[in-house]
């Protein structure tokens, strides 16, 4: 089984979010970048398929050279090959199109991408990629088993779960649940050393066709002070929620 895991290079979850160039660009100054958490759950599940079922695992990222430390980390975790498509990601459509080319060329059986990146939260790439390839697609996937050519997947729905069966090739929009938080791997020294020798292929983009463009960023207005209510005076809280906030 050949697996491709799509990796997004995103600011760490604790990053301060600021903008530059007249609020048109994300300010990367002092920001630590990480593997998008939803992608990392997928990558870790892919490692399980590698260990238990002999799968090969490639990773692909759409991004410029600055994404390479993140890509190297995926190799240190255990991916076999990495592909970097040498262009800045602008929108989901463009990213999906670039990944579709790589996915088609590589004839992968299973493609895993996070259900959304934690920077733009678009939630577009996995579905678009599947449709462009003509493969089956399961989003918000929290469990995945592969037996031969058949996949059994559980998807999170509003208020529950849905189990389905399908044939490979398949695209998954992954998230926590594919593996547990405690299954995530911190690369060891051997992994890091080996990652240096693994291939990181840089490929040219096929184009820059975008359908949407981020124009300007703003930050939410600062919040007013919290109103503290005495623990002995619950009636006051209920009164505020009812008459002031109109929340109950």
């Amino acid at each position: 089984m050949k697996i491709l895991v799509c990796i997004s290079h995103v600011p760490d979850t604790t990053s301060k979010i600021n903008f530059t160039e007249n609020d048109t660009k994300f300010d990367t100054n002092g920001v630590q970048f990480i593997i998008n958490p939803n992608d990392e759950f997928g990558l870790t599940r892919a490692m399980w398929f590698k260990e238990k079922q002999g799968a090969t695992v490639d990773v692909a990222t759409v991004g410029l050279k600055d994404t390479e430390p993140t890509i190297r980390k995926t190799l240190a975790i255990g991916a076999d090959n990495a592909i970097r498509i040498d262009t800045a990601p602008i929108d989901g459509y463009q990213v999906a199109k670039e990944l579709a080319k790589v996915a088609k060329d590589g004839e992968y059986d299973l493609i895993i991408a996070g259900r959304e990146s934690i920077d733009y939260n678009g939630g577009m790439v996995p579905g678009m990629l599947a449709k462009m390839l003509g493969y089956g697609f399961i989003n918000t996937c929290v469990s995945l088993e592969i037996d031969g050519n058949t996949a059994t997947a559980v998807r999170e729905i509003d208020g529950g779960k849905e189990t389905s069966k399908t044939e490979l090739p398949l695209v998954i929009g992954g998230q926590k649940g594919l593996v547990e938080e405690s299954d995530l791997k911190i690369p060891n020294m051997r992994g890091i050393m080996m990652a240096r020798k693994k291939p990181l292929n840089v490929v040219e983009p096929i184009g820059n066709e975008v359908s949407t463009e981020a124009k300007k960023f703003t930050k939410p207005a600062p919040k007013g002070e919290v109103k503290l209510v005495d623990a002995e005076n619950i009636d006051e809280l209920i009164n505020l929620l009812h008459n002031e906030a109109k929340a109950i």
Partner: protein
Amino acid sequence: MSILVYTETENGKFKKASFEVASYAKAIADQTGGSVTAVAFNAANPQELEKYGVNKVLHVENEKLQKFNADAYAQVITEATKQETASIIVVSQSANAKYLAPLLAVNLEAGYASNVVEVPNTEDAFTVKRTAFTNKAFNETAINTSTKIIGLSTNSFGVHESETSAEIISFEGAVTDENFKINVESVDKNTDKVSIADAEVVISGGRGLKGPENWHLIEDLAETLNAATACSKPVSDMGWRPHGEHVGQTGKPVATNLYIAIGISGAIQHLAGISASKTKVVINNDPEAPFFKAADYGIVGDAFEVIPKLTEKLKEFKANNA
């Protein structure tokens, strides 16, 4: 010009988010001219949509489409868009809508903006305001394609009545076997409990609850307010509560009317995930907990004393205001 909305049903009933997307489409129609057409699958009462400004309902009653199937539903909406020559399509951000929208975007070669929180600006370029960086920022996004898809964030626009009369038209939608690659085998849904996505009120518990055996306190309070129950990341990581209840950056987003956090300190990732909620209440014994900076109302106190009292008082309140 026609604006198309996907109005989701559950067991034949429209979800509240369907009325919200209809209201939103009506607001666009008022701004740009044009009418609102809804696509509804197996609705018990499609006529209901006319209360929210829908002029036409394409009602799909295909036997094959009884159960949600993202690719098949996207195909039907694609056909409907072409038939109606619609240039704007509005979907909610429910799990199912988020599942089908990217498929629809590829079918229609349409630009798709998700997590939109305001009516588009159509003066110059067509731009929408959407949340980014998990609610830590907003982003104005231009949609450059002739057909545009908007994913409207839950509870961002609200439901607005606008009585009109709607024509109900039966719509077939040509689906093929190709659209049914995914075979749903079973659905496991807690039907007697409101889901986090649909709830008006969410009661969320953190490590301060000390253990899963104390969750009856959260559940009792939730029941009083017909609320969904949720939890912080450590609570789901420790297995006290199922993953489906984890809210925050890597969990579920919450955009509810009232969010009550109990025994949750308020890590930045948690706050980001819930900040779209309208009113936030925190109950924590640590006055230094970061959640107090993000909340509207707060009680510094012991959860084990405060929750039962709050539940009891709310019961009285509900009884008096029923």
